[in-house]
């Protein structure tokens, strides 16, 4: 690009004098939804070995991941609803079901998934709840009421509901990826590599979330922390391989999404920053997790890596969903997007995280989730200052 115009073949250059300007049509709410639902389905997968397959070693991790899966599953649909410009018309989804639309399919999968996860958590948490029936006040009231009777949760029921929830989590994973990847109008979205990276960054984020909950709930289970560390490491390597595959294949067969990405990185400083940031964060995550694997003494800082993992999952979705919308579709250049302060912007982001935190605090207050599948109810260790400092 010269100072005045884009060089256009050998002897022409062109400048755009008049063109419409379009704002973005999906707001940061969409990022919040894709982030939370990705965390949710991937967290549920981390629940599988401990809760569904009954692997003893994975039970602490399953306790952490179940809290992550439920809390994000509850908040995700709220941000999805908020991204509609007519949220009160959400019932139209059910009045006019449309099999041709991934979003319409999603409107069926999502509530089923959320329902299954909540049901699973109820089944798992009602045993520790019953054990707390003697407590006073609201805690005791809830511990007596919520389990709906004294029966012991049969193991087969946990397995059945767990399998159903996992199947539904796959439907959510597939629809959220396909919904975006089928849009040929946006070359950067129109690639089957995108759902794969959504999935892997979802796993990275979910393991990060478990690490963070492990630290800040005071549970500080060293084995669970190590397991999550390994998952972050493996998922980061896989994500790197998928990204490399995308780039290599795109260069080889001239794929539209790679071409669009290279063009954006070439023409726009913001995109260059995003690309550098993404690569740097990926490498940092890889090195951090790798170092902690080999040097046990570093593991007390695992939670920092957990936060970085969450940041990577979030930033990826922000770049994909927000930044891609700033690339004009049939005009030159990039649309400016400045994050507004109101509910369509910053307030929405902060609000969703606040709501998530509130859900976690409420669950933590009323549900002895640490005691699930024979764990120790360590509600008294909630303060993060207690516990063994060498475990993150």
């Amino acid at each position: 690009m010269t100072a005045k115009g884009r060089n256009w073949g050998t002897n022409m250059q062109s400048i755009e004098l008049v063109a419409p300007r379009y704002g973005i049509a999906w707001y940061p709410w969409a990022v919040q939804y894709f982030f939370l639902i990705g965390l949710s389905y991937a967290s549920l997968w981390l629940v599988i070995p401990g809760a569904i397959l009954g692997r003893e070693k994975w039970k602490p991790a399953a306790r952490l991941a179940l809290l992550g899966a439920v809390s994000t599953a509850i908040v995700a649909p709220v941000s999805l609803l908020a991204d509609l410009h007519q949220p009160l018309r959400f019932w139209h989804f059910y009045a006019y079901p449309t099999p041709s639309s991934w979003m319409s399919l999603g409107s069926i999968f999502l509530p089923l998934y959320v329902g299954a996860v909540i049901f699973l958590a109820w089944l798992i948490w009602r045993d520790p709840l019953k054990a707390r029936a003697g407590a006073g006040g609201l805690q005791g009231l809830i511990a007596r009421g919520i389990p709906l009777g004294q029966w012991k949760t049969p193991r087969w029921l946990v397995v059945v509901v767990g399998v159903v929830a996992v199947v539904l989590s796959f439907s959510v994973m597939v629809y959220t990826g396909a919904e975006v990847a089928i849009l040929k109008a946006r070359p950067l979205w129109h690639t089957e590599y995108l759902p794969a990276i959504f999935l892997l960054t979802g796993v990275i984020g979910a393991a990060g979330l478990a690490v963070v909950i492990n630290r800040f709930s005071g549970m500080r289970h060293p084995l669970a922390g190590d397991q999550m560390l390994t998952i972050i490491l493996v998922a980061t390597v896989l994500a790197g391989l998928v990204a490399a595959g995308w780039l290599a294949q795109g260069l080889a067969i001239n794929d539209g999404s790679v071409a669009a990405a290279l063009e954006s990185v070439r023409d726009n400083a913001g995109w260059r920053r995003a690309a550098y940031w993404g690569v740097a964060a990926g490498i940092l995550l890889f090195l951090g997790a790798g170092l902690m694997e080999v040097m046990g003494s570093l593991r007390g800082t695992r939670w920092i890596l957990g936060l970085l993992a969450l940041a990577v999952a979030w930033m990826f979705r922000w770049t994909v969903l927000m930044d891609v919308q700033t690339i004009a579709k049939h005009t030159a250049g990039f649309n400016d997007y400045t994050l507004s302060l109101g509910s369509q912007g910053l307030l929405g982001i902060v609000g969703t995280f606040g709501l998530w935190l509130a859900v976690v605090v409420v669950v933590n207050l009323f549900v002895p989730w640490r005691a699930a599948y024979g764990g120790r109810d360590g509600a008294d260790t909630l303060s993060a200052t207690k516990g063994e400092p060498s475990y993150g």
Partner: protein
Amino acid sequence: MELARRFFLQQVARVTAGAALVPLSTVANAGINDQPPRRGGDPKKRYAMLIDLRRCIGCQACTVSCHIENQAPLGKFRTIVSQYEVESLESGNAVQFMLPRLCNHCDNPPCVPVCPVQATYQQEDGIVLVDSDRCVGCAYCVQACPYDARFINDRTQTADKCTFCAHRLEAGLLPACVESCVGGARIIGDLNDPGSQISKMVEEYRGELMVLQPEKNTVPHVFYLGMDERFIDRPSAAPELWEIRDGEGQELGYEYAEH
């Protein structure tokens, strides 16, 4: 980078190629993302528009008359004329290129199957419409249109776009843009009627007509005569209009209030 750049240029150059990319077509065959049945409208007709660029002077009369007719919010356009200056580096001569843009009322419109509530639908006569009472404002269709023909109307909070002035066609009138076009560049009509002016012109100029982004396989039904093929994809031009920034480096944007 040079290699990548060459690949990109190839990509841009491949303007007429057919289906090529669409690796997810297997999914479409399974029914998801297939076109739902058309509804309403006259099944005997197929409306289309031909824009004779040789006659367009870039006066934006169409833009203004559409705004008055259809009351789009300020800053949002159902139709607008993009304008470019193309300069020869050898002679220094500059020419203006005008590109009137509107919804293409595609025959394979990607905006339709994505709509989760079928608020966006195609009539039997080819016109693509939005039922604003049904639309939930999810903006999925806005993302799906490769031509930026759609937007969310801030007033109705629903999807909005050119309707070919279906309400005027029904009353036997021409669309506002066609009626107001100073040079008579916009021709609308029924492709199924061999006697219509558009049918005759399509016949006469068959080899010369172009549509926007043909490789996306949307089968647009707004045809351009006198088109430069370098503009049928996202134009490779410098966005001069947006280079003007305020002190903080922010775009100046539109400075007006809602009417």
